[in-house]
């Protein structure tokens, strides 16, 4: 666990970057630090590995004050990923990944063998090993950056806007792969981002910072969307937080009405709604494993305002109109 104890950082010249921050980042979880620019989130991150020294207060890793640790030794035990990856241009991809194990005293051969495996793990084939960073796309560089941070298998990872320099399609893909990786590895991660959607998507917990380096609210993404602590957080989280909050609710408990009026094939799979020019597309279907957000979206997009649920075999087994959904949500609230 990483603990901030009443941490203050005032830069020479008097500007306060971090103002009395107390925060816990639980072990094995990803805590997203999010906020507008100048809110002190990056400064806070960089105090964990002593790239920035706090003016007052303490930062503890598993109860031990980082100020008492040797800087280089501390940093070798903490993975570090930044925007644009910050790879060494003069080293091959393989040697970039092998960096920290070599610093820790492994032979170059051992470190390279381990690096090769890691590259595959982040989705890069073996032919990338001998290339130089300039020969990679932004997304590929970022994967190498993640592999490099993981190379010494550190329990803690610090990530500063790791996915913000790549285009939205690649970012989406990196998010998915990263979540899968984290599910396997269970690192304690602090991730800085200015993008609340990214924070909500990746974070087990989200800490929202406001200008002047003060913590506005910390909680699970669901808590943040359901109950923002004040206007600042509510606005930062966004006006569609009601709809977005539905993505944390399962459709399993949602009552459905019997299938009626829907055109089905022989196996009971939906063909569409009856129309003058043949069946009209249902716009997709949902299962019990989907979220209420998916259901709401289907009901809105459906030509008849009804979302279709299917069972594991693909056969339609229930219908939900937007009225049904609204009633369900209203009933749940009271």
């Amino acid at each position, binding site marked *: 666990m990483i603990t901030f104890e009443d941490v203050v950082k005032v830069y020479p010249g008097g500007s306060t970057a971090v103002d009395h921050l107390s925060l816990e980042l639980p072990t094995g979880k990803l805590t997203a630090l999010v906020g507008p620019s100048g809110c002190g989130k990056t400064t806070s991150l960089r105090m964990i*590995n002593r*790239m920035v020294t706090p003016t007052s207060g303490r930062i503890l890793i598993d109860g031990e004050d980082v100020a008492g640790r040797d800087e280089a030794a501390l940093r070798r035990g903490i993975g570090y990923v930044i925007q644009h990856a910050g790879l060494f241009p003069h080293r091959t991809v393989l040697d970039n990944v092998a960096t920290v194990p070599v*610093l820790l005293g492994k032979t170059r051969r051992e470190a390279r063998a381990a690096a090769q495996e890691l590259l595959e793990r982040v989705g890069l084939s073996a032919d990338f090993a001998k290339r130089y960073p300039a020969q990679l796309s932004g997304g590929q560089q970022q994967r190498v950056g993640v592999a490099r941070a993981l190379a010494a298998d550190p329990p803690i990872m610090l990530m500063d806007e790791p996915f913000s320099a790549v285009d939205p399609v690649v970012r989406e893909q990196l998010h998915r792969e990263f979540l899968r990786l984290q599910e396997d590895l269970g690192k304690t991660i602090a991730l800085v981002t200015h993008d609340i959607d990214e924070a909500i998507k990746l974070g087990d917990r989200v800490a929202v910072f406001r200008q002047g380096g003060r913590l506005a609210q910390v909680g699970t993404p669901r808590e943040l969307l359901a109950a923002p602590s004040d206007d600042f957080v509510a606005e930062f989280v966004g006006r569609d937080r009601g709809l977005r909050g539905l993505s944390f609710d399962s459709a399993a408990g949602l009552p459905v009405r019997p299938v009626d009026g829907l055109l089905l094939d022989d196996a009971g799979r939906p063909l569409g709604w009856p129309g003058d020019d043949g069946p009209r597309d249902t716009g997709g279907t949902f299962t019990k494993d989907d979220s209420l957000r998916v259901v709401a979206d289907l009901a809105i997009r459906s030509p008849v305002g009804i979302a279709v649920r299917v069972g594991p075999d693909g056969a339609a087994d229930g219908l939900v109109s937007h009225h049904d959904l609204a009633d369900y949500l209203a009933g749940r609230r009271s």
Partner: protein
Amino acid sequence: MTEYLRNNADTVWLALQEHVWLALLPVLLGFVIALPIGYLGVRFPALYHPLVNTCGVLYSIPSLALFVFLPVVLGTKVLSPVNVVVALTIYTVALLARTVADGLRSVDPVVVQAATAMGYRRVRRLAGVELPMALPVILAGLRVATVSNISLVSVGALIGIGGLGQLFTRGFQLFYIEPILVGIVLSVLLAGLADLLIVLVQRAVTPWTRAV
């Protein structure tokens, strides 16, 4: 020209050898001295501009003046090759200290920070990250310094130590064009060869600059 060469092979060979070491020893010494000086100019940013200015002034001292002036300062004999070596080392330092500083300043600070955050200590970071990344700039400066030294050695002939330059003085004294031609051709060849060697070394040690 070939006949002159055949008859004076020994003289020309000795002059060429002298020329090579008079030019290249200062490159080596200058490089070793310039490295820490250039580093200081980056480590302490306040020193950068004084460093650049001092280098500019040193390089603008006429070589002949330096050759004549050095024995007074160093207490060496007027005809000692040490004067030439010291003078050319001063020029090399003047060229390379600034080049080393500029090379180190050209390194992307984001990469240096990333190295620090991964647990590099200062010295290892300098040797393993900053200097290798500065090499293209530093080696470009080394080429200039080497070629410049090879041409400056000849000036030393005016005080009696000048490698191939002595062929020039001899030609002038005897009103005889052949040794002058031989001297010119050999110094140009020597400069070209040294330049080529550095380029080859550069290609070997910075393969990443050509990877796009």
